[in-house]
């Protein structure tokens, strides 16, 4: 059951007023423009024991994604495809409002939005991850962990997920006697990638649209629209989040803003990847 949240972070009325009136003037409390991201740091291969990983910092938000690989049976409806499972957890120390326990609706929603964007775009070519078609395929577990919450967890998590997939080196599968599969940890291959995707979250405050809201700004947003954009500029997923409403014009404007801002994010990913290759 989904319940109206009652344990929200408290932001003083004065601060809310100053954030709102600044946004009215096209400014932000941390000195940014409305369509500007905070500083972004991406470090690929952050965790040596994972097949792929990425540390991402956006403003004060810290997310680490990691990929683990195994061998298993495919789903009956896609017998010739590998399997990817995306999960997200918000650890209790990442925010005073997070609690220990299984992923809540926010973590589940975040993981599912990322999963859908990557899946629907076929960003990872799962058809190339069959080992013995119909019987044995690669199973990919992509786990996204939020360690510090300073707003805009979705865009940060997608950056971490995409960088992880782009830089991962999975162990090569060896088939013995035509049926036994072993993973050779010594010989590693990159994942087959078709396309890249990023998510840009656009927030609405008093009919103004802002991107990359920080944690205080999130408290004055009426609602958000997360827009996933592929590198070739198509829309690969969308999710309206939060209680407020959008007009049709606002939605179209948000899509434009997201498309423009996605270029910054793709540039950041490319820059980070170029350093490790």
């Amino acid at each position: 059951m989904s319940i109206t949240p009652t344990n929200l972070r408290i932001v003083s009325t004065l601060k809310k007023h100053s954030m709102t009136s600044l946004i009215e003037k096209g400014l932000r409390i941390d000195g940014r423009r409305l369509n500007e991201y905070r500083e972004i740091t991406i470090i690929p291969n952050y965790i040596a024991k994972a097949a792929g990983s990425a540390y991402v910092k956006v403003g004060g938000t810290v997310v680490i994604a990691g990929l683990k690989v195994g061998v298993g049976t495919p789903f009956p409806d896609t017998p010739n495809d590998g399997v990817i499972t995306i999960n997200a957890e918000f650890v209790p120390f990442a925010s005073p409002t997070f609690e220990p326990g299984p992923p809540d609706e926010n973590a589940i929603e975040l993981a599912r939005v990322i999963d859908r964007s990557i899946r629907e775009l076929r960003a990872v070519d799962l058809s190339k991850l069959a080992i013995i078609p119909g019987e044995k395929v690669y199973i990919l577990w992509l786990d996204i962990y939020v360690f510090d919450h300073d707003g805009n967890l979705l865009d940060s998590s997608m950056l971490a997920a995409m960088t992880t997939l782009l830089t991962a080196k999975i162990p090569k599968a060896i088939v013995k006697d035509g049926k036994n599969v072993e993973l050779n940890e010594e010989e590693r291959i990159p994942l087959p990638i078709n396309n890249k995707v990023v998510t840009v979250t656009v927030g609405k405050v008093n009919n103004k649209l802002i991107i990359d809201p920080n944690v205080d700004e999130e408290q004055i947003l009426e609602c958000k629209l997360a827009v996933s954009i592929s590198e070739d500029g198509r829309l690969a997923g969308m999710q309206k989040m939060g209680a407020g409403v959008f007009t049709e014009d606002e939605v179209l404007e948000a899509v434009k803003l997201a498309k423009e801002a996605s270029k910054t994010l793709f540039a950041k990913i490319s820059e980070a990847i170029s350093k490790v290759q």
Partner: protein
Amino acid sequence: MKPEGLKLINEEGLRIDGRRPDELRPVIMEVGVLKNADGSAYIQQGNTKVIAAVYGPREIHPKHLTLPDRAILRTRYHMVPYSTDERKSPAPTRREIELSKVIREALESVIFVELYPRTTIDVFIEVIQADAGTRTAGIMAASLALADAGIPMRDLVAAVAVGKVSGQLVLDINQLEDEYGEADMPIAMMPSLGKIVLLQLNGVLTEDEFKQALQLAKKGIMKLYEYEQQALRKKYVEIKPEEV
């Protein structure tokens, strides 16, 4: 995997169930279908069947969940085990948890929650037969049930999913179109206010296709809004003056 020879749109441009691209499935809406609930509604849209019920405004237990300046909303979207081809476990899935959240968030701005401080308004949606469009049918049934419960709202909510099937945008997709189509975009609006309360896109569209999809959805939403009003009138307004 798409079955061999499955054609989602035929040579005449008609869909697998004979509809035109901009045609809704047949709809049945009924208000006040349950005895116990404060408000309830049933919606059948093609082969999708959904019941929604509302309790409240009522007291909340545990008390710490109350808010001093408004009612809280509790929403559950649930599919019963026999609603799908394969039995669905009755335990809440990740999908149901996400949909309960987006439906609750859609209703938050529709209901005048500030009129009922320290209470809860509970909205329950049970999908009894699933053939795509269950969240959109569910949210419509919820808005009818809320109206039936006499809870003040800014507008009714009408909702529909637009899909992309064999490269073409189509209104109100069914299960086959959902499974083998390229995109599914559920959208819910308060139609007379022109406000979008729920919007999701699963799949890939160009910016132009997205604009067209929005227009197509609005067309369907205006029709469904008509049907919703008819369903409410049928229960509440058709008492003729001479009978009073």
